[in-house]
């Protein structure tokens, strides 16, 4: 529970953070809320030699109306996202799901950018972003900026499309005020990560369904989405929720049980999203 030695750089702007990242290269890690990174350091599972603190950068913490989408700064805390009136009105699924992350302490410090960049398939927000086709904006010290569709961002367990010198700066979520939605999180204790979770948006027969903790990355329940598009009933479609997934096994659940939970929770999500 004692981290190894590291140097600490406090960045005051996104540019400063990127410059520091370029300077220290692969030995450096960005530190946002620290709620994923600090536990790894304390258990000595990660040992970067430099931490670049982006937690208090004002130009990375915002929620702006971008016309067809809402733009969220990467260092915006879970609490701010969960309480945002703009998000509650335009992308209620994201605001609600963020309110289910961990407990109040976690939500007060943890950031949406940290949660996305960490790439944990058990986290809540990644599945939401995948379900609603969000776009992630990354920038590097060279000044280049690229937009990565959420569906292409998560590569494998804790691996993302970000290059070592890149920082996630913004999350763009499409406005979907009228769509039906549901977020289902199944766990044994309220503050825990989901054993399985489901983020669903539904507009007529067009559905976006993201699954939490059903593989190495957040995944879409493609077979269910296709079944719905083909006119299947929600119950019929939900029966395909686990098709093509490769869920993990741990003390809480083996793959069989996770597949079952995915089917049950997708069924409930579709039911709730329709009503």
């Amino acid at each position, binding site marked *: *529970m004692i981290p*190894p030695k590291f140097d600490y750089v406090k960045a005051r702007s996104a540019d400063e953070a990127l410059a520091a990242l370029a300077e220290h290269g692969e030995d450096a890690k960005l530190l946002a809320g620290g709620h994923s990174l600090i536990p790894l350091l304390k258990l000595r599972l990660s040992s970067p030699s430099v931490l670049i603190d982006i937690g208090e950068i004002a130009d990375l913490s915002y929620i702006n109306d971008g016309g067809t989408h809402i733009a969220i700064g990467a260092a915006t805390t879970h609490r701010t996202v969960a309480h945002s009136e703009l998000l509650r009105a335009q992308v209620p699924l994201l605001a609600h799901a963020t309110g289910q992350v961990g407990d109040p302490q976690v939500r007060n410090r943890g950031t949406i950018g940290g949660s996305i960049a960490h790439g944990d398939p058990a986290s809540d927000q990644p599945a939401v972003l995948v379900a609603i086709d969000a776009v992630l904006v990354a920038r590097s010290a060279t000044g280049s900026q690229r937009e990565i569709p959420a569906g292409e961002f998560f590569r494998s367990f804790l691996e993302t499309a970000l290059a070592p010198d890149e920082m996630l700066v913004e999350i763009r979520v499409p406005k979907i005020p009228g769509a039906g939605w549901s977020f289902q999180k*199944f766990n*044994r204790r*309220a*503050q825990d990560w989901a054993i399985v979770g489901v983020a669903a948006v539904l507009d007529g027969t067009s559905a976006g369904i993201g699954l939490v903790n059903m593989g190495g990355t957040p995944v879409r329940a493609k077979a269910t989405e296709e079944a719905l598009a083909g006119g299947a009933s929600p119950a019929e479609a939900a029966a395909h929720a686990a098709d093509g997934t490769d869920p993990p096994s741990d*003390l809480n659940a083996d793959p069989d049980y996770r597949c079952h939970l995915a089917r049950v929770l997708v069924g409930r999500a579709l039911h709730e999203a329709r009503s």
Partner: protein
Amino acid sequence: MSMVGTRVIRKEDPNLITGRGLFTDDVSIMGTTIMAFVRSTEAHADIVSVDLAEARALPGVLVVITVDDLETQELPGAFMRTVLAKDRVRFVGEPIAVVVAEDRYIAADAVELVQVTYRPLPLVITPVEALAVGAPLVQEALGTNVCFEVPWPQEQIDQVDRAFEAAPRQASTTFHSQRVHPVPMEPSAILADWGPDKLTVWASTQMPHGLRNCLSSFLGVPQHQCRVIQPDVGGGFGAKVQQYPELFLAPILSKRLGRPVKYVQTRTECFAIMCSGRDQHHEIDVAFDDDGHILGLRSLIHADLGAYPDLPNSFGMPTLTNWMSSGCYKIPAIVAGYKCVLTNKTPQSAYRGAGRPEASFLAERVVDLIADETGIDPAEVRLRNFIPTDEFPYKVPHAEVYYDSGNYPLSLHEALRLCDYENLKVERDRRNADASEKLMGIGFSTWVEIAAFGPRGALEGFGHIGSYESAQVKIQPDGTAIIATGASPHGQGTHTTLAMIAADELHMSIDNITVRSGDTDTTPQGVGTMGSRTAAIAGEATKQASIKVFQNACKIAAHMLEANPDDLECVDGLFQVKGVPSKTIPWSQVGWAGLSPTLLPDDIPAGCLESTVFAEPTGFTYPAGAYVCVVGIDRDTGHVEVEKFYSVDDCGTVINPLLAEGQVQGGIIQGIAQALFEEMVWDSAGQPLTTTLMDYLAPAASDVPSIIDGRTNTPTPHNSLGAKGIGESGTIGSTPAVVNAVVNALAQYGVKNIAMPISPQRVWRILNQAQGA
């Protein structure tokens, strides 16, 4: 008005909730160094080599040692264990070497630089593995993995066999009270400062005097030069009674370095090496008749003690289970025995309830089994088997155990009333027939336990100096009181409890009383806080010492009032002749006179307003109660929710209902945790898988119900307060109520038993199989 029986707010709280508590880690002395352990990564292996060179060379490292550098190597109070591993390791986490450095960070880095090479050995993780023919031996010198055994006595075997032959019906079953682990907010912590003239130790312990006595003999330092201070302690739950390596190494290394040495355990270390609890496997046969009367019981326990039992606590746990295995039922013939088994796991020892939760689980599951077999309502089976109220003191047939007092039907009837049982049953049957509703189950536990350890000889057998507890009441010159007790509370609110008892006997405001504990130099010899003993025994000591002091105070006041002491009373801190409030002497004048000889009557010596009493109870007490648990089960996911929990406790006289409720609620939640959430898990290679609070599912407030509580009062004859003890009741009573409720809800699927913790996956399997069939 009497304080006892009222909801007095804790005297302890203002400090704690304003951050002014002083815990061991808060104590800072100039020059303090930090100790850290190199721990085994293997569950069973020979240590081929330990290379300390790199760690020793790290700047800021002061000393790095292994067991070879210790003069005395054997760990006191442990079974075949050295302070640091010698030649062989026997569980993951076992300390192999110890580092002291200038700060915590250097110490942690140095630990990583110590190179240990192992030659892995075959290992055993469960009693079944450990008892198999040709099993690897945890202690080769012992020649067996059974380290202690209490076989079935022949005459009991014969008696029970006869009962079974005559009985119309019988049933057999097995239970496992799984390993659970204490999660005190503050893990183990110690600061040792061995100066030129004395050793001072601050420790997060449950028994400062016991620790002082043990350190003194181990280290060869006389007791007057060995002081143990127990500052605020963030919970113990029985796991801070044991003698851990750090408690001896910190003083030894402090002496060697001439500097204070501090060790503060991390949470992961706490899971790896603090003693865990339970882990008993039960094989049960029960004989009964068609009316649900229990006629005989056979019980055989395999207790999994891990690699190094803590002596003699670990061996004693199943003894307590055996003693209490008939619960509150009159069972004519019982035979009970056990085997203690060594495995390559963390040592197991006392954990809140200590042997009795396993017993109540056994008894309460057995009664439900009989209810299920006979089709008689479980509440009715209980009523038919309760020890009749007029048969106390009641001796159990299989041990020298005498239940002091009890009224079990009263508690159960009160619980049935509280929960409105008849309507609950209607509700349950309606829900279980309606597939759109959650399944519902109702579970009972009418448990009894053994507490207030104990009468003369009770704790001596567990290695303690005595079974008493002490209190010293000292009136100050201004008439206020300081009470020093040998009890050593660590969260229970005992300062409030004792102050209330003293306030009643001294006729003094509770605000004028301060209670001190946890310092071997300034409190009378004590035994410690454990075994639900403090209210009953330290409370009694406080009461008797206060009475003595008050009698002398009356003599002094009478002298001042020129009256007869027998004619005096004390009202709101003012002494007066009974019914004559016009002329009064306040406690302040009496206190001053007590230490100012010219004001004293000739036959009263100075200092007469001080008294120290060691209270020795005349017997154990047997708190009991009736709990009802209502669960709802999600038919699709298998998730179990405790929807309602009703508790009726009978702990005799309640000193402070607020504190009693706190103990009951916390205890019940710990019991629910065992039923539904918690388990220490090791994989087949002996690696613990539950070493963080992410994996070890200690529940939080939102995961447990609020508890609807009731109470009955059957005082104990063993102390003048009538108090039985309440510290462990909730933990002992609640687990079987939850499991009985789940089994009740799943009965329609043919379920008769279910393993703990009852995870949603486990329940889903059952539901899934039932639907497949």
